[in-house]
């Protein structure tokens, strides 16, 4: 009994020593970040691992904000090499990076992702404008009676918002506040819809805090239901409740086209072509950021960047487009590929 305990503790001490040595020489790429970019990043990583002799990169889905926190904590093998993001890096995050020694960051734009407002195929398609979306989902809306005042959202059915819409209860299932998809939806759909009111448009310069509170706060009285990060669950709930709408990325609409249909926003259907042309308004660019300091220390980063920026990955006929990512126009792709090859560092204005 005593000998086996001694043996076990010796073994564990050995493993501890071995593991700290291992940490010193990490031979796989470590990627963290957005859950929206995660499905695309993983496809490239798998291709990269299978077609080269490098180890397959390890990718964690921590969310855009969480990814930047980990990424900007410093330079060294214990920190991630790349972070995925469903929005551009903020000035505050960039400053944190600089302060912690992450001086040179390469920004890579990879494509676009459409956000759709979908409902079950059993119901009629919704034809919405961004103003309708704002009035239906914001916490405080302009007084229906007129004037420049804001009141708590009184609208209960879609017909109240816009007489041409059906008289069903407003019920929207969407991502929680921690999600980048929610941030993007709020900015692209609600904020733009809010600005159609002249007094809100003027508020942007006059009272920034109130502007933010008006345009970006979502109602909490039960009409907007936070359905968690699992978009599959939202699709299933839409099947069960034909009167509800759901907010999720284009790839989920693509994979479930037999069960759900995307709403038409300002006259444009959410199709691959419309999002690629920029006609469908609710779409946002996707990025990832690379630490230049890690590029020749961790094996394979250059080759991984090459794989991601190759036509067979992000091109119009590439495998990322098969997975639901909307590619950038050819010219933009060429420009980004060139910048990535030179590892051009990001400069914030």
């Amino acid at each position, binding site marked *: 009994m005593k000998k086996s305990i001694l043996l076990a503790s010796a073994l564990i001490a050995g493993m501890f020593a071995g593991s700290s040595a291992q940490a010193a020489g990490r031979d796989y790429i*470590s990627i963290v970040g957005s859950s929206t970019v995660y499905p695309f990043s993983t496809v490239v990583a798998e291709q990269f691992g299978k077609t080269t002799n490098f180890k*397959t990169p390890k990718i964690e*889905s921590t969310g855009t904000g969480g990814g930047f926190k980990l990424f900007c904590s410093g330079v060294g093998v214990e920190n991630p090499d790349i972070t995925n993001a469903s929005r551009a890096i903020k000035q505050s995050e960039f400053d944190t990076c600089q302060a912690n020694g992450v001086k040179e960051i390469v920004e890579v734009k990879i494509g676009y992702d459409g956000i759709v407002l979908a409902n079950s195929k059993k119901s009629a398609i919704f034809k919405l404008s961004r103003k309708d979306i704002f009035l239906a989902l914001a916490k405080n809306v302009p007084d229906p009676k007129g004037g420049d005042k804001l009141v708590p959202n009184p609208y209960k059915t879609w017909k109240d918002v816009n007489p041409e819409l059906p008289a069903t209860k407003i019920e929207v299932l969407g991502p929680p506040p921690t999600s980048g998809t929610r941030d993007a939806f709020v900015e692209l759909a609600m904020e733009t819809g809010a600005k159609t009111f002249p007094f809100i448009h003027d508020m942007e310069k006059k009272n920034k805090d109130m502007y933010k509170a008006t345009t970006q706060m979502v109602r909490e009285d039960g009409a907007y239901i936070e359905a968690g990060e699992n978009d599959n669950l939202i699709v299933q709930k839409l099947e069960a409740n034909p009167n509800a709408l759901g907010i999720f990325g284009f790839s989920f609409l693509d994979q479930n086209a*037999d069960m759900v249909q995307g709403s038409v926003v300002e006259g444009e259907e959410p199709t691959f072509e419309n999002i690629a042309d920029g006609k469908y308004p609710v779409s946002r660019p996707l990025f990832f950021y690379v630490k230049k300091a890690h590029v020749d220390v961790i094996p394979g980063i250059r080759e991984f960047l090459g794989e991601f920026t190759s036509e067979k990955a992000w091109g119009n006929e590439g495998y990322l487009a098969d997975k639901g990512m909307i590619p950038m126009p050819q010219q933009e792709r060429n420009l980004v590929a060139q910048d990535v090859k030179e590892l051009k560092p990001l400069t914030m204005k």
Partner: protein
Amino acid sequence: MDQPATNPTIAKVNKGLKRRYRAERRFRLTGATAIFTALCFLFLLFFSIVSSGYKAFQKTFIQIDVFFDPVEFTNENLATANFPGLVKSSLNAMFPEVTVRSDKKDLYYLVSSGASFQLMDLVKNNPAIIGKTQQIWVAANDDVDMLLKGNIDRSRPEAERRVNDKQLIWIDKLTADGKIKKTFNTGFFKSGDSREPEMAGIWGATCGSFYTLLITLSLSFPIGVAAAVYLEEFAPKNRWTDIIEVNINNLAAVPSIVYGLLGLAVFINFFGMPRSTPVVGGLVLTLMTLPIIIIASRASLKSVPPSIREAALGIGASKMQTVTHHVLPLAMPGMLTGTIIGMAHALGETAPLLMVGMVAFIVDVPHGVTDPATVLPVQIYLWSDSPERAFVEKTSAAIMVLLAFLFFMNAAAVFLRKRFEIKW
């Protein structure tokens, strides 16, 4: 009854007898209904998981004739040959009537992208195959797989289907020629994770779970048993040991994600251990399982009667010998049961591993405790989040495998307890 109505007490008792019997029957009925309802829910759970997951144990294969053209293999490194091109040319040969470029793309889509890697492995294992033509069963694309399993509705309009009309015609032709078949999905048990549902498997997660549990067991069992033995047999009974006992009991109830945060702060940030490895995951789960093992071991040690200890001391054994030769072996069955239950609990944990980075997409199967790895419950969580329809059945199949493991471990605990338990 000799004195039925004369004794007033018995008369009172007899009056209330009917009510008492009725209350007892009601109570028994309530208990039986509760158990029946629980069993119904359990049956519903198993039925819904098995019904959505059993199809994942079958995989669709398409037979293609591949000519390993020597012209492709001029390079020293056989792996660099254009294997996707070989697949494409064999499909072109099978369907020569397809000429338009967009139709050709639809045709190539029928076969999985993993087919080219399958061919690569074939050539690497047997280079003599170059120059010959072989009939090979390659994996079909996940949409074809879904169609053959009945998950894609053929009657829907084309725009709503993942498989268009032309592809339906080709699939029907392949079925008529006997070149499509569904067989047992061994790949599910042999491959690691993948973004292509037809190529994804649980082997990587299973190995990760194995290594993590190995670390957990090898650390928590000795430390837990030793702590229990010390606290029960050797420690003086004073305020400090009381405080320790209270703390251990409370730790058993702490939410598991707190251990994850502790692991992140201490093991990763302070000790600098690598993220996403079974070492760190195992250490975090050790912290979580220790209180359970200590409590179970202490209860088991308490159950050994003092007469055993006194008898051992009486024939001249020292305190140490009493404990290790007499008390511990007798308490071992209970300790083992507690350990197995603790392990089964640790096998199903996801939240603490989230903080140490084990919730990640990892394709390579881990070969040691310091390779990046993920565990079975995490694999289930990641698959449940993927948009592809084929991952739905794979998620349920992985849940079935995990439940099978847990069931087996708990059954082993029950068996061991029954076998080795000594009734005083």
